[in-house]
């Protein structure tokens, strides 16, 4: 067996019992190194990466030759050879991976262009004072275009802060009108705006905050037919949607167009943020190749959400968008930030590209946009409670309840909702208990189920029909429709 000496560099001597050199047996450089870490296990993590290979910046010399010019670790040794371990010294100012090129803006500011007007120098003075922003950074923001998909809980704070930051063009996609229930969290709107189209109000509000921002209102439902054209002119897309078909549509369009997608989502007390950019990391589909079954994840309208939550998540999205535009800091590429408002904790998960991703991997099979409603299992595109369920209108139910053979009415909401208000004729069986309490429902009688807006009760109706109940109907529009059209004394919420 060949005996050689391995010289231990100063920084690692503490892990080799203080020795300056170690004598080892081994016929090759690699074998000698393995023997070294066998004798001194504390050296392993400083010399070898998790995959068992020599760390990329560690160089081995045999006598005075870099082994990369010989046979690397297979280089044979002779008695008396000396192996030295020398690091390359590498580092840099950002991130963990190779330096990423700055985002190329669709309309980059011309080089050496004039200074900002005086009022903008004052408006953005706090940005100009930051070395990481400065005049050059502010000009980049001014030349940038960001599209916000959704002007609701997430889009509201994002739009406000991106406008304040001086993003030159902000596109908004939302076809809703302002509803009173929005004002618990959608801070772009005021009480006087209820009933107005969201985009009209948002545009006015943003322009009042910063007249230098151009607001482009896309008052349409995003679909496979228009998504590529709508997204194309923008530099960054901020996804603040509230439904899965649109999430997948936005992700897919961003991947096909090569644009970063700043993702944010909220559910009850929890939020998530990440940046998906298929050119440099995973896409949304790498994380979630398939949407959950339609009835598994309720919307905010059904499950509720803490009002302050989208405020934080939306601003985190705006933060990531600004960082991408400035080319500074470490974006959440390949990182999923998880926020738990109740515990007040942040966690992070590392996201990897899916090497088999149907959309963004080298083996991608999907080359264009698809039918997202079908993909997500929602036959009527997610609007309403279709699903082919037998329904009854509030007026018809009122008439039947007053008649000779009234149906048994079941309220499938939660006890706290029952307490807000319920139909006098109803019995409470929360949906999650339905399966256990099915025996209480005699098969001979007619059944009508209701919930708040008709979504949950539609699924519960399907559940009972599948079990064999023949006469089950869903109250269309739920107790809210009942309150609107039959009995205004029942509170809406």
């Amino acid at each position, binding site marked *: 067996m060949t005996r050689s000496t391995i010289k231990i560099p100063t920084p690692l001597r503490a892990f080799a019992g203080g020795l300056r050199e170690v004598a080892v047996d081994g016929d090759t450089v690699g074998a000698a190194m393995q023997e070294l870490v066998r004798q001194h296990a504390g050296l392993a993590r400083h010399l070898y990466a998790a995959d068992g290979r020599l760390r990329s910046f560690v160089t081995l010399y045999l006598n005075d030759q870099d082994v990369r010019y010989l046979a690397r670790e297979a280089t044979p040794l002779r008695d008396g050879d000396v192996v030295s371990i020398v690091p390359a010294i590498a580092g*840099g100012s950002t991130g*963990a991976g190779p330096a990423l090129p700055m985002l190329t803006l669709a309309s980059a500011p011309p080089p050496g262009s004039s200074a900002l007007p005086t009022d903008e120098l004052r408006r953005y003075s706090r940005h100009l004072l930051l*070395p990481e922003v400065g005049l050059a950074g502010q000009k980049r923001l001014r030349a940038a275009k960001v599209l916000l998909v959704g002007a609701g809980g997430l889009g509201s704070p994002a739009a406000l802060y991106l406008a304040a930051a001086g993003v030159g063009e902000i596109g908004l996609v939302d076809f809703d009108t302002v509803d009173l229930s929005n004002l618990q969290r959608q801070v772009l709107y005021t009480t006087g705006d209820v009933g107005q189209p969201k985009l009209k109000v948002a545009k006015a509000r943003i322009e009042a905050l910063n007249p230098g921002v151009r607001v482009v209102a896309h008052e349409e439902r995003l679909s496979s037919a228009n998504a590529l054209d709508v997204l194309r002119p923008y530099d960054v897309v901020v996804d603040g949607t509230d439904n899965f078909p649109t999430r997948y549509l936005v992700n897919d369009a961003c991947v096909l167009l090569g644009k970063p997608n700043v993702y944010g989502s909220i559910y009850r007390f929890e939020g998530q943020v990440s940046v998906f950019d298929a050119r440099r990391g995973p896409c949304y589909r790498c994380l979630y190749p398939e949407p959950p079954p339609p009835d598994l994840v309720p919307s905010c309208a059904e499950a509720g959400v803490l009002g302050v939550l989208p405020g934080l998540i939306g601003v985190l999205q705006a933060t990531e968008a600004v960082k991408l535009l400035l080319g500074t800091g470490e974006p959440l590429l390949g990182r999923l930030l998880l926020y738990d408002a109740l515990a007040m904790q942040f966690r992070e998960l590392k996201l990897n590209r899916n090497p088999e991703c149907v959309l963004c991997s080298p083996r991608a099979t999907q080359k264009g946009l698809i039918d997202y409603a079908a993909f997500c299992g929602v036959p009527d595109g997610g609007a309403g409670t279709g699903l082919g369920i037998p329904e009854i209108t509030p007026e018809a139910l009122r008439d039947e309840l007053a008649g000779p053979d009234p149906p048994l009415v079941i309220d499938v909401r939660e006890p706290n909702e029952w307490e807000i208000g319920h139909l006098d004729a109803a019995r409470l069986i929360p949906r999650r208990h339905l399966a256990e309490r099915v025996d209480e429902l005699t098969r001979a009688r007619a059944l009508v189920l209701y919930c708040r807006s008709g979504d949950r009760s539609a699924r519960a109706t399907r559940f009972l029909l599948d079990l064999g109940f023949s006469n089950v109907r869903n109250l269309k529009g739920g107790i809210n429709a009942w309150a609107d059209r039959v009995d205004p004394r029942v509170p809406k919420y």
Partner: protein
Amino acid sequence: MTSVRLAEGVLDTIRGHARETYPDECCGFLLGAVEPGMSSDRRNVGTAERAPNEFAGERRRRFLILPEELRAAEARADARGLVVVGFYHSHPDHPARPSAYDRDHAWPWYVYLVVSITSSEVPAVGVFELDGDRGEFDEVGFQTGAAPTSSLGR
């Protein structure tokens, strides 16, 4: 806790180098001696020596000192009775704090000095050492000025 003493002129040399290469990162060696202490070492840095930044890509954000350069610097230091105690590099338009990339490429014991430099401001300096468990960088206190030439006891 390691501490560092930088001799007069070392920081000026480093700042001057950083200004010259701005907006690219500069890099170099910190040469000196190790003064063992009761509970921790002190590194007395007598000289800062420039190294070429051989990073093949974007030098605004990355630096690389080749192992051959380090070997040569160690040989030169050895000839003067000194030791390479660490390295310096600059962060153009970025804080004087090590990044995740710095951490992934660092070894313990060495002292890493980072100088933040912008086109207009006075550069800020931070000095760091990687903890032995490869967890995080610890910030290291440093002083400037001449080291005591003799000590009559501690």
